[in-house]
């Protein structure tokens, strides 16, 4: 099944629940009408939260730049001795 079909099925299922709620009036009608808006806003907030949390915990590796420099120096020395042109470009 294509992914978009999966998402459509999910949306249809949620819509069916919503329509069911509208018809059976378990929740007062005025509230039920607003549910889709609440849902979209919650989804948006969740997304922003995930972005924020991810940004705070973004893994960085400053020591890797130093290690890379060391590796580069080591490589240049080895290669120069064996006749490979490692002049800076």
């Amino acid at each position, binding site marked *: 099944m*294509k*992914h*978009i079909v999966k*998402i459509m099925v999910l949306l249809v299922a949620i819509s069916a629940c919503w329509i069911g709620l509208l018809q059976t009036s378990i929740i007062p009608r005025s509230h039920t009408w607003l549910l889709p808006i609440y849902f979209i806003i919650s989804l948006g907030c969740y*997304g922003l939260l*995930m*972005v924020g949390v*991810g*940004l705070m915990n*973004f*893994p*960085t*590796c*400053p020591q*890797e*730049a130093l290690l*890379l420099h060391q*590796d*580069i120096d*080591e*490589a*240049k020395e*080895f*290669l120069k001795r*064996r*006749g*490979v*042109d*490692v*002049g*800076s*470009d």
Partner: protein
Amino acid sequence: MVKEKKNKYSIIVPTYNERLNIALIVYLIFKHLRDVDFEIIIVDDGSPDGTQEVVKQLHQVYGEDRILLRPRAKKLGLGTAYIHGLKHVSGNFVVIMDADLSHHPKYLPSFIKKQLETGASIVTGTRYVKGGGVHGWNLMRKLTSRGANVLAQTLLWPGVSDLTGSFRLYKKSVLEDIISSVVSKGYVFQMEMIVRASRKGYHIEEVPITFVDRVFGSSKLGGSEIVEYLKGLAYLLVTT
């Protein structure tokens, strides 16, 4: 009597104007893969800076059987570079990696180990988990990356944490299967590869990698890139 088939790893490195980096990368690959049967396939798109001359010098040091120079006439794009490289692969596993040293060969053993442990069809490097990381990105860049990732995760449910990464190990047959159905270009290409693999049910594992962005100061993420990314996402949403 069943003869145990030994594994050989073919590392495809597309290059364009990587005269210095290609030598460094080759040195580091040989340093970190001492007991491994491998070959490096360099697909150079007619670099004007003499990259191919440097590769020929590397032949003298490491041998022409381990370093395969398979150039093309001009810059033809990443996807076709992999397809071109694949034609010369003699291994049963293929590694793809960048030539600019943002991908460090020291992680190659961990890719290989992960694949042997799990039998995975694809092992992909991820920068976004503990043990991995990025250096050289400012806040704006991190924000865009994180936002793009959250959007892609929400829409596509890809099953991997780093969609645009291009440091990956594939079983050769799996790479051949997926690459034939991919049409995108640029980094959306990498996304399409991994999403299609996920949809086809291939076993995908991740290993943490560190990514040192050495192209300081270049604005690789302008408005047009963002639009291209969103279009790519929409395309993947509908066609995979």
